[in-house]
């Protein structure tokens, strides 16, 4: 099974990456090379194995925890918006989405 240029277009759109034609062709070749080494992994018998999403799961009695759901950060809107590309009246500006 290998990825086609149409697959690359579909993935690039899902990932919101605008690829140029030359980039798209190169990406197709490189991804297919990569998935060549992945085939070995697909052949492994993993029946009954529980997926490991997080290494803390295999650290004895350690567990990931949640903090209390309370606001603990001060409002720093100005500081947080300092590096935004376009801001007006404390709001982030994006291109018009509703006609």
């Amino acid at each position: 099974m290998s990825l086609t240029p149409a697959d690359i277009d579909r993935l690039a759109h899902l990932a919101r990456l605008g690829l140029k034609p030359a980039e798209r062709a190169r990406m197709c070749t490189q991804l297919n090379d990569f998935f060549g080494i992945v085939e070995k992994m697909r052949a492994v018998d993993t029946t009954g194995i529980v997926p490991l999403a997080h290494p803390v799961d295999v650290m004895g009695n350690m567990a990931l925890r949640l903090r209390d759901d309370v606001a603990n950060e001060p409002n720093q809107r100005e500081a947080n918006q300092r590096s935004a590309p376009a801001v007006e009246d404390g709001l982030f500006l994006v291109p018009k989405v509703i006609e």
Partner: protein
Amino acid sequence: MTQTSTDLHDLTVAQLATLLRQRKVSAVEAARHFLTRATAYKHLGAFLGVSEDVTLAQASAADARLATGATGALLGVPLAHKDIFVTRDFVSTAGSKMLDGYRSPFDATVVSRLAEAGAVTLGKLNCDEFAMGSANENSAFGPVKNPWDSSRTPGGSSGGSAAAVAARLTPAATGTDTGGSIRQPAAFCGITGIKPTYGRASRYGMVAFASSLDQAGPLARTAEDCAILLGAMCGPDPDRDSTSLDVPTEDFSLKLGDSIDGLRIGIPAEFFGEGLADDVRASVNAALKQYELLGAKLVPISLPRTELSIPVYYIIAPAEASSNLSRFDGVKFGHRAAQYTNLTDMYLQTRAEGFGDEVKRRIMIGTYVLSHGYYDAYYLQAQKIRRMIADDFQQAFTQCDVIAGPVAPTVAWQLGGHGNDPLADYLADIFTLPASLAGLPGMSLPVGFGAGNMPVGLQLIGNHLTEARLLNVAHRFQQATDWHIARPQGV
């Protein structure tokens, strides 16, 4: 003992901290000395951002604290941070055009913890874009050169950190390791570095690449220095990082002097196969012999899924990256394309312009393996083998106390040496990926020189939360040998 400012850069963190405490040198003098060196060695490309005023203000504040008799393990000691840590007072780029000129409203926890310990920040260090790379060639701001041979890579992704420490531009530096990004550049540059157990150091303010793998750690010249830095960097951060472990801060220096007589060192057969270059094999074997002289016993072990760790890692890390990097949308911070037709096009153009090739490849791989119809076959399958790899380590640790082997199959390669073949970089990560997937601490220490007189690193891997033991094992080696003292020519 009197020190002149010309040889300050030869001191270790421990030595420099002592001189600062004794007020034989001031923090401002030390800072100035290293800033001058950073400028003199600009051609290495190690530093991305310096801000002399900020550094000197921090140094003056440290001097004021020293004058009151205050102590702190790092009070007045200059350090530099990998540019993957966000900093309020220095631009934070993560090596990406996407964050060119970005100013964070806050400091990463690792940065603020080191500042609380009294460290003075010299600046920000070059790295692969979003820490994705093994040669520091993926930085949007140019590659870093290896101080041992400027035609070669310093390794990656913490290449700027490793090169700066090796060239004595800073006594020590922070780095991050997702699949080997502290250990491999430390090995390539002939210095010492440690990636602690996953969760030891807070990830708050570390620009996220792969959240279940990313971990911060120090790069320095000695294991003793790494122990000092690691102690200051680690500790619970319960309000800001849900993956930060709830284990108390530890003094990693406590066990440095312990004997390693009777230590069982596991030697994984899979780390010494055909792919290992002869020069690296020779230096690693000589180091293992040295360990036998120090009283350790070598125990043959097996990590049977070592090779599988490459596809497993390069599925899981890009999957997490594709999700993490969705935040770069040209709206809240960072680059926005100048030309676009509508909102979707703004995303497409912004991300096309802001991300480099390797980052795009990983976003594409991640998007694919998480997409409908492929999730089970790729992502879930990788996670299942990840558990098998973690279990293999636990099996191995029933037979040994630490595991030792090479960090990388070869010494540092030529810049551009892997050409346009990203797969060549992935394959070279084979020995560092397994410990990363299992969340285990791993370190690299210099143990010799291979082809082209390039440094060779020995990797030590321990079980979860055994960093003090690893550092002890490395320290005992450094007490008996002088590989860690060797310096590049012209430095």
